[in-house]
Protein backbone atom coordinates (compact mmCIF):
# COMPACT_ATOMS: atom_id res chain seq x y z
CA UNK A 1 0.00 0.00 0.00
CA UNK A 2 2.72 2.48 0.94
CA UNK A 3 4.65 1.72 -2.22
CA UNK A 4 1.55 2.52 -4.19
CA UNK A 5 1.11 5.93 -2.59
CA UNK A 6 4.78 6.72 -3.07
CA UNK A 7 4.56 5.78 -6.72
CA UNK A 8 1.44 7.89 -7.22
CA UNK A 9 3.00 10.97 -5.63
CA UNK A 10 6.15 10.59 -7.68
CA UNK A 11 3.98 10.46 -10.81
CA UNK A 12 2.16 13.65 -9.89
CA UNK A 13 5.19 15.49 -8.53
CA UNK A 14 6.56 16.98 -11.79
CA UNK A 15 3.20 18.54 -12.62
CA UNK A 16 2.66 19.81 -9.09
CA UNK A 17 6.15 21.33 -8.91
CA UNK A 18 5.74 23.02 -12.30
CA UNK A 19 2.33 24.41 -11.37
CA UNK A 20 3.66 25.74 -8.08
CA UNK A 21 6.72 27.30 -9.73
CA UNK A 22 4.81 29.01 -12.54
CA UNK A 23 1.33 29.26 -11.03
CA UNK A 24 1.63 29.88 -7.30
CA UNK A 25 4.98 31.69 -7.19
CA UNK A 26 3.96 34.36 -9.73
CA UNK A 27 0.66 34.71 -7.92
CA UNK A 28 2.41 35.43 -4.62
CA UNK A 29 4.93 37.66 -6.37
CA UNK A 30 2.05 39.54 -7.95
CA UNK A 31 0.38 40.18 -4.60
CA UNK A 32 3.73 41.47 -3.32
CA UNK A 33 4.30 43.82 -6.26
CA UNK A 34 0.70 45.01 -6.00
CA UNK A 35 1.73 46.77 -2.78
CA UNK A 36 4.74 48.46 -4.37
CA UNK A 37 5.37 51.54 -6.46
CA UNK A 38 7.67 50.98 -9.44
CA UNK A 39 9.74 53.74 -10.91
CA UNK A 40 9.77 53.90 -14.73
CA UNK A 41 13.53 53.57 -14.35
CA UNK A 42 14.14 49.81 -13.81
CA UNK A 43 17.42 50.41 -11.97
CA UNK A 44 15.65 52.13 -9.06
CA UNK A 45 14.23 49.71 -6.47
CA UNK A 46 10.44 49.57 -6.00
CA UNK A 47 8.98 51.06 -2.82
CA UNK A 48 6.37 49.56 -0.52
CA UNK A 49 3.27 51.75 -0.53
CA UNK A 50 0.64 49.51 1.08
CA UNK A 51 -2.77 49.90 -0.50
CA UNK A 52 -1.68 52.95 -2.47
CA UNK A 53 -2.10 51.18 -5.80
CA UNK A 54 -5.59 50.06 -4.90
CA UNK A 55 -6.58 53.58 -3.96
CA UNK A 56 -5.18 55.09 -7.13
CA UNK A 57 -6.86 52.38 -9.23
CA UNK A 58 -10.29 52.89 -7.73
CA UNK A 59 -10.03 56.62 -8.40
CA UNK A 60 -8.70 56.05 -11.93
CA UNK A 61 -11.51 56.77 -14.43
CA UNK A 62 -9.74 54.73 -17.11
CA UNK A 63 -9.65 51.62 -14.89
CA UNK A 64 -13.32 52.02 -13.99
CA UNK A 65 -14.09 52.74 -17.62
CA UNK A 66 -12.31 49.56 -18.75
CA UNK A 67 -14.40 47.53 -16.30
CA UNK A 68 -17.56 49.14 -17.62
CA UNK A 69 -16.63 48.43 -21.24
CA UNK A 70 -15.76 44.83 -20.36
CA UNK A 71 -19.15 44.52 -18.63
CA UNK A 72 -20.97 45.84 -21.72
CA UNK A 73 -19.11 43.45 -24.04
CA UNK A 74 -19.71 40.63 -21.56
CA UNK A 75 -23.47 41.13 -21.34
CA UNK A 76 -23.98 41.65 -25.08
CA UNK A 77 -21.67 38.84 -26.24
CA UNK A 78 -22.78 36.33 -23.61
CA UNK A 79 -26.45 36.89 -24.40
CA UNK A 80 -25.88 36.44 -28.13
CA UNK A 81 -23.59 33.44 -27.67
CA UNK A 82 -26.05 31.57 -25.49
CA UNK A 83 -29.16 32.36 -27.54
CA UNK A 84 -27.57 31.82 -30.97
CA UNK A 85 -25.55 28.87 -29.65
CA UNK A 86 -28.68 27.16 -28.38
CA UNK A 87 -30.57 27.74 -31.65
CA UNK A 88 -27.61 26.28 -33.53
CA UNK A 89 -27.38 23.35 -31.11
CA UNK A 90 -31.09 22.54 -31.62
CA UNK A 91 -30.61 22.68 -35.39
CA UNK A 92 -27.59 20.37 -35.19
CA UNK A 93 -29.56 18.02 -32.94
CA UNK A 94 -32.39 17.85 -35.47
CA UNK A 95 -30.27 16.75 -38.41
CA UNK A 96 -29.11 13.21 -38.79
CA UNK A 97 -26.69 13.16 -41.68
CA UNK A 98 -23.65 15.34 -42.18
CA UNK A 99 -23.38 16.43 -38.59
CA UNK A 100 -19.70 15.54 -38.19
CA UNK A 101 -18.71 17.53 -41.27
CA UNK A 102 -20.81 20.54 -40.29
CA UNK A 103 -19.42 20.56 -36.77
CA UNK A 104 -15.80 20.43 -37.92
CA UNK A 105 -16.43 23.36 -40.27
CA UNK A 106 -18.21 25.31 -37.54
CA UNK A 107 -15.32 24.78 -35.14
CA UNK A 108 -12.84 26.58 -37.38
CA UNK A 109 -13.49 30.03 -35.82
CA UNK A 110 -12.80 28.66 -32.33
CA UNK A 111 -9.62 26.93 -33.46
CA UNK A 112 -8.23 30.07 -35.10
CA UNK A 113 -5.81 32.13 -33.02
CA UNK A 114 -7.49 35.17 -31.40
CA UNK A 115 -4.85 37.40 -32.96
CA UNK A 116 -5.78 36.12 -36.43
CA UNK A 117 -9.46 36.56 -35.59
CA UNK A 118 -8.64 40.16 -34.68
CA UNK A 119 -6.78 40.63 -37.97
CA UNK A 120 -9.52 39.20 -40.15
CA UNK A 121 -12.32 41.20 -38.49
CA UNK A 122 -10.19 44.31 -38.68
CA UNK A 123 -9.93 43.70 -42.43
CA UNK A 124 -13.64 42.93 -42.77
CA UNK A 125 -14.68 46.07 -40.89
CA UNK A 126 -12.22 48.36 -42.70
CA UNK A 127 -14.20 51.33 -43.95
CA UNK A 128 -12.64 51.46 -47.41
CA UNK A 129 -11.30 48.02 -48.30
CA UNK A 130 -13.44 45.85 -46.03
CA UNK A 131 -16.05 43.32 -47.07
CA UNK A 132 -18.81 44.54 -44.76
CA UNK A 133 -19.09 48.03 -46.18
CA UNK A 134 -18.80 46.52 -49.66
CA UNK A 135 -21.76 44.21 -48.97
CA UNK A 136 -23.77 47.04 -47.43
CA UNK A 137 -23.13 49.28 -50.43
CA UNK A 138 -23.58 46.74 -53.21
CA UNK A 139 -26.53 44.81 -51.82
CA UNK A 140 -28.37 47.37 -49.73
CA UNK A 141 -27.12 50.73 -50.98
CA UNK A 142 -25.99 51.73 -47.51
CA UNK A 143 -23.29 54.42 -47.30
CA UNK A 144 -19.92 53.33 -45.86
CA UNK A 145 -19.77 53.12 -42.08
CA UNK A 146 -16.59 54.00 -40.17
CA UNK A 147 -16.95 50.86 -38.08
CA UNK A 148 -13.81 50.81 -36.00
CA UNK A 149 -13.26 54.51 -35.42
CA UNK A 150 -16.71 55.55 -34.24
CA UNK A 151 -18.97 54.63 -31.37
CA UNK A 152 -20.99 52.52 -30.85
CA UNK A 153 -19.99 50.66 -34.02
CA UNK A 154 -16.47 50.00 -32.69
CA UNK A 155 -17.95 48.14 -29.74
CA UNK A 156 -20.37 46.31 -32.04
CA UNK A 157 -17.42 45.19 -34.18
CA UNK A 158 -15.72 43.69 -31.12
CA UNK A 159 -18.89 41.95 -29.97
CA UNK A 160 -19.45 40.51 -33.46
CA UNK A 161 -15.91 39.13 -33.50
CA UNK A 162 -16.30 37.58 -30.03
CA UNK A 163 -19.64 36.06 -30.99
CA UNK A 164 -18.14 34.74 -34.23
CA UNK A 165 -15.20 33.12 -32.46
CA UNK A 166 -17.08 31.39 -29.63
CA UNK A 167 -20.72 30.74 -30.64
CA UNK A 168 -19.93 27.51 -32.50
CA UNK A 169 -18.05 26.24 -29.44
CA UNK A 170 -21.02 27.12 -27.22
CA UNK A 171 -23.32 25.31 -29.65
CA UNK A 172 -21.16 22.15 -29.66
CA UNK A 173 -21.11 22.01 -25.86
CA UNK A 174 -24.88 22.55 -25.73
CA UNK A 175 -25.30 19.87 -28.41
CA UNK A 176 -23.39 17.52 -26.11
CA UNK A 177 -25.92 18.44 -23.43
CA UNK A 178 -28.89 17.79 -25.71
CA UNK A 179 -27.62 14.31 -26.51
CA UNK A 180 -27.70 13.45 -22.79
CA UNK A 181 -31.49 13.96 -22.64
CA UNK A 182 -32.99 10.46 -22.85
CA UNK A 183 -34.87 9.89 -26.10
CA UNK A 184 -37.76 8.12 -24.36
CA UNK A 185 -38.56 11.24 -22.32
CA UNK A 186 -38.92 13.24 -25.53
CA UNK A 187 -40.85 10.43 -27.21
CA UNK A 188 -43.24 10.15 -24.26
CA UNK A 189 -43.94 13.88 -24.43
CA UNK A 190 -44.62 13.54 -28.14
CA UNK A 191 -47.06 10.66 -27.62
CA UNK A 192 -48.88 12.69 -24.99
CA UNK A 193 -49.26 15.38 -27.64
CA UNK A 194 -47.26 18.05 -25.84
CA UNK A 195 -46.58 21.01 -28.14
CA UNK A 196 -42.95 21.63 -29.03
CA UNK A 197 -42.91 24.91 -27.14
CA UNK A 198 -43.84 23.22 -23.88
CA UNK A 199 -41.40 20.35 -24.41
CA UNK A 200 -38.69 22.95 -24.78
CA UNK A 201 -39.81 24.91 -21.73
CA UNK A 202 -40.52 22.09 -19.30
CA UNK A 203 -38.22 19.26 -20.40
CA UNK A 204 -35.30 20.46 -22.51
CA UNK A 205 -34.42 23.76 -20.81
CA UNK A 206 -34.40 22.42 -17.22
CA UNK A 207 -32.19 19.50 -18.26
CA UNK A 208 -29.87 21.84 -20.11
CA UNK A 209 -29.39 24.18 -17.16
CA UNK A 210 -26.02 22.81 -15.99
CA UNK A 211 -24.64 22.95 -19.53
CA UNK A 212 -25.74 26.56 -19.92
CA UNK A 213 -24.11 27.45 -16.62
CA UNK A 214 -20.82 25.76 -17.41
CA UNK A 215 -20.44 27.11 -20.91
CA UNK A 216 -21.63 30.53 -19.72
CA UNK A 217 -18.94 30.64 -17.08
CA UNK A 218 -16.27 29.53 -19.56
CA UNK A 219 -17.36 32.39 -21.80
CA UNK A 220 -17.20 34.87 -18.92
CA UNK A 221 -13.57 33.92 -18.39
CA UNK A 222 -12.85 34.22 -22.11
CA UNK A 223 -14.39 37.68 -22.29
CA UNK A 224 -12.74 39.00 -19.13
CA UNK A 225 -9.35 38.02 -20.55
CA UNK A 226 -10.20 39.52 -23.93
CA UNK A 227 -7.15 41.23 -25.38
CA UNK A 228 -6.25 40.33 -28.94
CA UNK A 229 -9.57 41.15 -30.60
CA UNK A 230 -9.94 44.75 -29.37
CA UNK A 231 -6.18 45.25 -29.63
CA UNK A 232 -6.31 44.54 -33.32
CA UNK A 233 -9.79 45.63 -34.38
CA UNK A 234 -10.03 49.04 -32.68
CA UNK A 235 -6.75 49.44 -30.74
CA UNK A 236 -8.92 50.71 -27.91
CA UNK A 237 -10.30 53.57 -29.94
CA UNK A 238 -12.08 55.81 -30.63
CA UNK A 239 -10.41 57.60 -27.72
CA UNK A 240 -10.41 55.03 -24.95
CA UNK A 241 -13.95 53.85 -25.55
CA UNK A 242 -13.13 50.23 -26.38
CA UNK A 243 -10.28 49.75 -23.89
CA UNK A 244 -11.41 46.55 -22.20
CA UNK A 245 -9.86 45.32 -18.95
CA UNK A 246 -7.19 43.23 -20.68
CA UNK A 247 -6.09 46.08 -22.92
CA UNK A 248 -5.89 48.51 -19.99
CA UNK A 249 -3.89 46.02 -17.93
CA UNK A 250 -1.36 45.87 -20.74
CA UNK A 251 -1.27 49.62 -21.07
CA UNK A 252 -0.53 49.95 -17.37
CA UNK A 253 2.19 47.34 -17.42
CA UNK A 254 3.93 47.76 -20.74
CA UNK A 255 3.13 51.30 -21.93
CA UNK A 256 3.20 53.16 -18.61
CA UNK A 257 5.53 50.63 -16.89
CA UNK A 258 3.41 51.08 -13.79
CA UNK A 259 3.99 47.48 -12.72
CA UNK A 260 2.63 48.03 -9.22
CA UNK A 261 -0.74 49.24 -10.39
CA UNK A 262 -0.82 46.62 -13.14
CA UNK A 263 -0.22 43.95 -10.49
CA UNK A 264 -3.00 45.36 -8.36
CA UNK A 265 -5.31 45.17 -11.35
CA UNK A 266 -4.21 41.56 -11.97
CA UNK A 267 -4.97 40.74 -8.34
CA UNK A 268 -8.41 42.25 -8.82
CA UNK A 269 -9.01 40.18 -11.98
CA UNK A 270 -7.70 36.97 -10.42
CA UNK A 271 -9.94 37.39 -7.39
CA UNK A 272 -12.95 38.09 -9.63
CA UNK A 273 -12.19 35.07 -11.79
CA UNK A 274 -11.58 32.87 -8.73
CA UNK A 275 -15.10 33.63 -7.59
CA UNK A 276 -16.31 32.56 -11.03
CA UNK A 277 -14.18 29.39 -10.88
CA UNK A 278 -15.46 28.54 -7.40
CA UNK A 279 -18.98 28.94 -8.69
CA UNK A 280 -18.19 26.60 -11.59
CA UNK A 281 -16.78 23.92 -9.28
CA UNK A 282 -19.82 24.20 -7.00
CA UNK A 283 -22.20 23.83 -9.90
CA UNK A 284 -20.36 20.80 -11.25
CA UNK A 285 -20.40 19.26 -7.77
CA UNK A 286 -24.14 19.92 -7.49
CA UNK A 287 -24.73 18.19 -10.77
CA UNK A 288 -22.69 15.19 -9.67
CA UNK A 289 -24.50 14.74 -6.37
CA UNK A 290 -27.85 15.15 -8.11
CA UNK A 291 -27.06 12.47 -10.68
Amino acid at each position, binding site marked *: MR*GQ*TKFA*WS*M*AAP*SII*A*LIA*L*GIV*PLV*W*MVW*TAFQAFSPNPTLPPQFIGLGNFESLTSDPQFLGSLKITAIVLVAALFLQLV*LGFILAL*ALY*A*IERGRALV*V*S*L*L*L*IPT*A*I*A*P*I*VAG*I*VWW*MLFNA*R*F*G*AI*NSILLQWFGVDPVNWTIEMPTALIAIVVAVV*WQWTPFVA*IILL*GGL*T*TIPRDVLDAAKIDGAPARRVLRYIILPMMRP*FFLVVGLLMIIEI*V*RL*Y*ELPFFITQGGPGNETVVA*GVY*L*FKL*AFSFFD*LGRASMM*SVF*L*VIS*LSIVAAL*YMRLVAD*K*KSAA
Partner: protein
Amino acid sequence: MSAQQTSLVGMKRPSRRALRNRIKKTVPWMIISAFLVFALFPVYWIILIAFRPRGDIFQYPAALLPTNMSLDNIRYVWFGSETNDPVIGFLGTSLVISVTASVIAIAFGVCCAYALGRFRIGGNFLSVWILSQRFLPPIALVVPLYLMFRELGLLDTYLGLIILYATFTIPIVVWLMLGYVESAPRELEEAAYVDGAGYWTTFVRVALPVLKPGLSVAAVFTFIFIWNEYVLAYQLAGDDVATITVYLPRLRSAIAELYGEIAAASLLSVLPAILFAGMMQRFLVRGLAFGGLK
Protein backbone atom coordinates in the same frame (compact mmCIF):
# COMPACT_ATOMS: atom_id res chain seq x y z
CA MET B 1 -37.80 23.01 -59.05
CA SER B 2 -40.35 22.64 -61.83
CA ALA B 3 -40.68 18.91 -61.24
CA GLN B 4 -41.46 19.61 -57.64
CA GLN B 5 -44.09 22.15 -58.62
CA THR B 6 -45.87 19.90 -61.06
CA SER B 7 -45.96 17.10 -58.56
CA LEU B 8 -47.47 19.50 -56.03
CA VAL B 9 -50.11 20.57 -58.51
CA GLY B 10 -50.90 17.02 -59.45
CA MET B 11 -51.26 15.97 -55.82
CA LYS B 12 -54.03 16.77 -53.46
CA ARG B 13 -53.23 19.41 -50.89
CA PRO B 14 -50.38 17.93 -48.85
CA SER B 15 -51.51 16.78 -45.43
CA ARG B 16 -50.64 18.92 -42.45
CA ARG B 17 -48.39 16.20 -41.23
CA ALA B 18 -46.37 15.94 -44.43
CA LEU B 19 -45.94 19.70 -44.46
CA ARG B 20 -44.74 19.68 -40.89
CA ASN B 21 -42.21 16.98 -41.65
CA ARG B 22 -41.00 19.02 -44.58
CA ILE B 23 -40.51 22.07 -42.36
CA LYS B 24 -38.84 19.96 -39.71
CA LYS B 25 -36.28 18.83 -42.24
CA THR B 26 -35.55 22.16 -43.92
CA VAL B 27 -35.57 24.63 -41.02
CA PRO B 28 -32.55 23.12 -39.23
CA TRP B 29 -30.58 23.15 -42.46
CA MET B 30 -31.50 26.78 -43.08
CA ILE B 31 -30.23 27.71 -39.62
CA ILE B 32 -27.06 25.67 -40.05
CA SER B 33 -26.40 27.17 -43.48
CA ALA B 34 -26.72 30.69 -42.09
CA PHE B 35 -24.23 29.88 -39.34
CA LEU B 36 -21.85 28.21 -41.79
CA VAL B 37 -21.83 31.36 -43.90
CA PHE B 38 -21.15 33.48 -40.81
CA ALA B 39 -18.43 31.12 -39.54
CA LEU B 40 -16.64 30.64 -42.84
CA PHE B 41 -16.97 34.03 -44.54
CA PRO B 42 -13.94 35.49 -42.68
CA VAL B 43 -11.89 32.45 -43.68
CA TYR B 44 -13.01 32.94 -47.29
CA TRP B 45 -11.97 36.59 -47.01
CA ILE B 46 -8.46 35.75 -45.79
CA ILE B 47 -8.01 33.37 -48.72
CA LEU B 48 -9.45 35.90 -51.16
CA ILE B 49 -7.18 38.73 -50.05
CA ALA B 50 -4.14 36.47 -49.75
CA PHE B 51 -4.35 35.64 -53.47
CA ARG B 52 -5.47 39.09 -54.66
CA PRO B 53 -2.95 41.35 -56.42
CA ARG B 54 -2.01 44.48 -54.51
CA GLY B 55 -3.67 46.84 -56.99
CA ASP B 56 -7.02 45.06 -56.56
CA ILE B 57 -6.88 45.00 -52.75
CA PHE B 58 -6.98 48.75 -52.41
CA GLN B 59 -10.02 49.30 -54.57
CA TYR B 60 -13.32 50.63 -53.34
CA PRO B 61 -15.70 49.00 -52.86
CA ALA B 62 -13.91 45.72 -52.31
CA ALA B 63 -14.80 43.01 -54.82
CA LEU B 64 -16.59 40.20 -53.00
CA LEU B 65 -15.68 37.55 -55.56
CA PRO B 66 -12.25 36.45 -56.78
CA THR B 67 -10.75 38.89 -59.25
CA ASN B 68 -7.26 38.38 -60.63
CA MET B 69 -5.19 35.71 -58.97
CA SER B 70 -1.70 36.46 -57.78
CA LEU B 71 0.84 34.58 -55.74
CA ASP B 72 2.74 37.79 -54.91
CA ASN B 73 1.50 38.10 -51.33
CA ILE B 74 2.37 34.52 -50.54
CA ARG B 75 5.76 34.99 -52.17
CA TYR B 76 6.57 38.19 -50.26
CA VAL B 77 5.62 36.55 -47.00
CA TRP B 78 7.37 33.28 -47.68
CA PHE B 79 10.66 34.69 -48.96
CA GLY B 80 10.52 38.09 -47.28
CA SER B 81 10.74 41.51 -48.91
CA GLU B 82 11.99 45.01 -48.11
CA THR B 83 9.05 45.56 -45.80
CA ASN B 84 8.89 42.23 -44.00
CA ASP B 85 10.93 39.26 -42.81
CA PRO B 86 10.31 35.84 -44.32
CA VAL B 87 7.60 34.04 -42.38
CA ILE B 88 9.32 30.67 -42.42
CA GLY B 89 11.54 31.33 -39.41
CA PHE B 90 8.56 32.36 -37.31
CA LEU B 91 6.56 29.31 -38.34
CA GLY B 92 9.58 27.21 -37.44
CA THR B 93 9.89 28.83 -34.01
CA SER B 94 6.20 28.25 -33.37
CA LEU B 95 6.49 24.65 -34.48
CA VAL B 96 9.51 23.89 -32.29
CA ILE B 97 7.95 25.52 -29.23
CA SER B 98 4.48 24.04 -29.75
CA VAL B 99 5.73 20.50 -30.28
CA THR B 100 8.30 20.51 -27.47
CA ALA B 101 5.98 22.09 -24.91
CA SER B 102 3.09 19.79 -25.91
CA VAL B 103 5.23 16.70 -25.50
CA ILE B 104 6.37 17.82 -22.04
CA ALA B 105 2.86 18.80 -20.96
CA ILE B 106 1.43 15.48 -22.12
CA ALA B 107 4.17 13.43 -20.45
CA PHE B 108 3.75 15.27 -17.15
CA GLY B 109 -0.01 15.57 -17.42
CA VAL B 110 -0.82 11.96 -18.20
CA CYS B 111 1.31 10.75 -15.27
CA CYS B 112 -0.45 13.23 -13.02
CA ALA B 113 -3.92 12.27 -14.29
CA TYR B 114 -3.10 8.59 -13.75
CA ALA B 115 -1.97 9.26 -10.19
CA LEU B 116 -5.09 11.28 -9.47
CA GLY B 117 -7.56 9.00 -11.25
CA ARG B 118 -6.22 5.62 -10.14
CA PHE B 119 -4.74 6.21 -6.71
CA ARG B 120 -6.78 9.23 -5.58
CA ILE B 121 -3.81 10.95 -3.95
CA GLY B 122 -4.41 14.33 -2.39
CA GLY B 123 -8.15 13.67 -2.37
CA ASN B 124 -10.52 16.04 -4.07
CA PHE B 125 -8.45 19.06 -3.12
CA LEU B 126 -5.49 18.24 -5.35
CA SER B 127 -7.58 17.56 -8.47
CA VAL B 128 -9.66 20.67 -7.95
CA TRP B 129 -6.53 22.75 -7.42
CA ILE B 130 -4.88 21.46 -10.60
CA LEU B 131 -8.02 21.84 -12.67
CA SER B 132 -8.67 25.32 -11.31
CA GLN B 133 -5.32 26.46 -12.74
CA ARG B 134 -7.12 26.43 -16.06
CA PHE B 135 -9.07 29.46 -14.90
CA LEU B 136 -5.98 31.58 -14.42
CA PRO B 137 -5.71 33.36 -17.73
CA PRO B 138 -2.13 34.08 -18.85
CA ILE B 139 -3.05 37.75 -19.12
CA ALA B 140 -3.51 38.01 -15.33
CA LEU B 141 -0.11 36.45 -14.63
CA VAL B 142 1.88 38.18 -17.31
CA VAL B 143 3.18 40.98 -15.06
CA PRO B 144 4.68 38.77 -12.32
CA LEU B 145 5.92 36.31 -14.95
CA TYR B 146 7.65 39.17 -16.71
CA LEU B 147 9.37 40.20 -13.47
CA MET B 148 10.30 36.58 -12.68
CA PHE B 149 11.69 35.94 -16.14
CA ARG B 150 13.66 39.18 -16.02
CA GLU B 151 15.32 38.05 -12.77
CA LEU B 152 15.99 34.56 -14.09
CA GLY B 153 17.27 35.68 -17.49
CA LEU B 154 14.53 33.74 -19.25
CA LEU B 155 13.10 36.64 -21.23
CA ASP B 156 13.23 36.04 -24.98
CA THR B 157 14.47 32.44 -24.76
CA TYR B 158 13.14 29.16 -26.15
CA LEU B 159 13.54 27.59 -22.72
CA GLY B 160 11.40 30.25 -21.05
CA LEU B 161 8.49 29.94 -23.44
CA ILE B 162 8.64 26.15 -23.51
CA ILE B 163 8.50 25.68 -19.74
CA LEU B 164 5.78 28.31 -19.51
CA TYR B 165 3.58 26.74 -22.18
CA ALA B 166 4.19 23.23 -20.91
CA THR B 167 3.11 24.26 -17.42
CA PHE B 168 0.06 26.20 -18.56
CA THR B 169 -1.20 23.28 -20.64
CA ILE B 170 -0.69 20.61 -17.96
CA PRO B 171 -4.13 21.36 -16.42
CA ILE B 172 -5.72 20.94 -19.86
CA VAL B 173 -4.05 17.53 -20.25
CA VAL B 174 -5.03 16.44 -16.74
CA TRP B 175 -8.59 17.66 -17.28
CA LEU B 176 -8.90 15.75 -20.58
CA MET B 177 -7.15 12.58 -19.37
CA LEU B 178 -8.92 12.16 -16.03
CA GLY B 179 -12.07 10.96 -17.77
CA TYR B 180 -10.10 8.44 -19.82
CA VAL B 181 -8.24 7.12 -16.77
CA GLU B 182 -11.42 6.74 -14.78
CA SER B 183 -13.28 4.93 -17.55
CA ALA B 184 -10.36 2.60 -18.41
CA PRO B 185 -10.82 -0.92 -16.99
CA ARG B 186 -8.84 -1.62 -13.81
CA GLU B 187 -8.79 -5.39 -14.29
CA LEU B 188 -5.95 -5.44 -16.79
CA GLU B 189 -3.70 -3.47 -14.46
CA GLU B 190 -4.61 -5.70 -11.51
CA ALA B 191 -3.80 -8.77 -13.58
CA ALA B 192 -0.40 -7.24 -14.34
CA TYR B 193 0.25 -6.72 -10.60
CA VAL B 194 -0.68 -10.36 -9.93
CA ASP B 195 1.85 -11.36 -12.57
CA GLY B 196 4.46 -9.44 -10.61
CA ALA B 197 4.76 -6.32 -12.73
CA GLY B 198 5.78 -3.12 -10.93
CA TYR B 199 3.71 0.06 -10.89
CA TRP B 200 5.77 1.80 -13.55
CA THR B 201 5.85 -1.21 -15.90
CA THR B 202 2.11 -1.62 -15.48
CA PHE B 203 1.53 2.04 -16.26
CA VAL B 204 3.69 2.04 -19.38
CA ARG B 205 2.81 -1.40 -20.74
CA VAL B 206 -0.83 -1.80 -19.71
CA ALA B 207 -2.44 1.54 -18.88
CA LEU B 208 -0.85 3.83 -21.48
CA PRO B 209 -1.95 1.82 -24.55
CA VAL B 210 -5.55 2.05 -23.33
CA LEU B 211 -5.20 5.83 -22.90
CA LYS B 212 -3.80 6.37 -26.41
CA PRO B 213 -6.95 7.87 -28.00
CA GLY B 214 -7.11 10.36 -25.15
CA LEU B 215 -3.49 11.28 -25.65
CA SER B 216 -4.05 12.25 -29.27
CA VAL B 217 -6.96 14.47 -28.26
CA ALA B 218 -4.79 16.10 -25.60
CA ALA B 219 -2.04 16.60 -28.16
CA VAL B 220 -4.41 18.44 -30.49
CA PHE B 221 -5.68 20.70 -27.72
CA THR B 222 -2.27 21.60 -26.31
CA PHE B 223 -0.73 22.13 -29.73
CA ILE B 224 -3.48 24.53 -30.81
CA PHE B 225 -3.44 26.37 -27.49
CA ILE B 226 0.30 27.00 -27.73
CA TRP B 227 0.35 27.69 -31.47
CA ASN B 228 -2.37 30.33 -31.04
CA GLU B 229 -0.99 32.03 -27.93
CA TYR B 230 0.00 35.66 -28.37
CA VAL B 231 0.12 37.52 -25.05
CA LEU B 232 2.98 35.61 -23.42
CA ALA B 233 4.81 35.10 -26.70
CA TYR B 234 4.86 38.85 -27.24
CA GLN B 235 5.55 40.10 -23.71
CA LEU B 236 8.00 37.46 -22.48
CA ALA B 237 9.77 36.92 -25.82
CA GLY B 238 9.29 38.33 -29.28
CA ASP B 239 12.69 39.62 -30.37
CA ASP B 240 15.18 36.79 -30.73
CA VAL B 241 12.51 34.16 -30.19
CA ALA B 242 9.44 35.28 -32.10
CA THR B 243 6.49 33.03 -32.89
CA ILE B 244 4.07 33.35 -35.78
CA THR B 245 1.49 35.21 -33.64
CA VAL B 246 4.13 37.86 -32.89
CA TYR B 247 5.00 38.13 -36.58
CA LEU B 248 1.48 38.98 -37.74
CA PRO B 249 0.93 42.33 -35.94
CA ARG B 250 4.37 43.47 -37.09
CA LEU B 251 3.12 43.58 -40.65
CA ARG B 252 0.62 46.23 -39.66
CA SER B 253 3.11 48.47 -37.95
CA ALA B 254 5.24 48.55 -41.08
CA ILE B 255 5.27 51.74 -43.14
CA ALA B 256 2.38 50.78 -45.35
CA GLU B 257 -0.37 48.50 -44.14
CA LEU B 258 0.57 45.29 -45.83
CA TYR B 259 -2.95 44.01 -46.33
CA GLY B 260 -2.15 41.23 -48.75
CA GLU B 261 0.89 40.11 -46.77
CA ILE B 262 -1.11 40.05 -43.53
CA ALA B 263 -3.77 37.93 -45.19
CA ALA B 264 -1.20 35.57 -46.67
CA ALA B 265 0.64 35.15 -43.36
CA SER B 266 -2.66 34.69 -41.50
CA LEU B 267 -3.65 32.01 -43.96
CA LEU B 268 -0.39 30.12 -43.39
CA SER B 269 -0.79 30.47 -39.63
CA VAL B 270 -4.34 29.07 -39.47
CA LEU B 271 -3.70 25.97 -41.55
CA PRO B 272 -2.94 23.75 -38.53
CA ALA B 273 -6.03 25.05 -36.72
CA ILE B 274 -8.24 24.20 -39.68
CA LEU B 275 -6.73 20.73 -39.95
CA PHE B 276 -7.20 20.11 -36.25
CA ALA B 277 -10.77 21.50 -36.04
CA GLY B 278 -11.86 18.29 -37.73
CA MET B 279 -10.12 16.23 -35.08
CA MET B 280 -11.50 18.27 -32.20
CA GLN B 281 -15.14 17.87 -33.18
CA ARG B 282 -15.23 14.11 -32.60
CA PHE B 283 -14.18 14.67 -29.03
CA LEU B 284 -16.36 17.64 -28.21
CA VAL B 285 -19.57 16.20 -29.62
CA ARG B 286 -19.23 13.18 -27.45
CA GLY B 287 -19.77 15.58 -24.60
CA LEU B 288 -16.63 14.47 -22.80
CA ALA B 289 -15.23 17.98 -22.88
CA PHE B 290 -16.38 18.57 -19.35
CA GLY B 291 -14.52 16.08 -17.23
CA GLY B 292 -16.93 16.57 -14.36
CA LEU B 293 -20.06 16.82 -16.39
CA LYS B 294 -20.26 13.62 -18.38
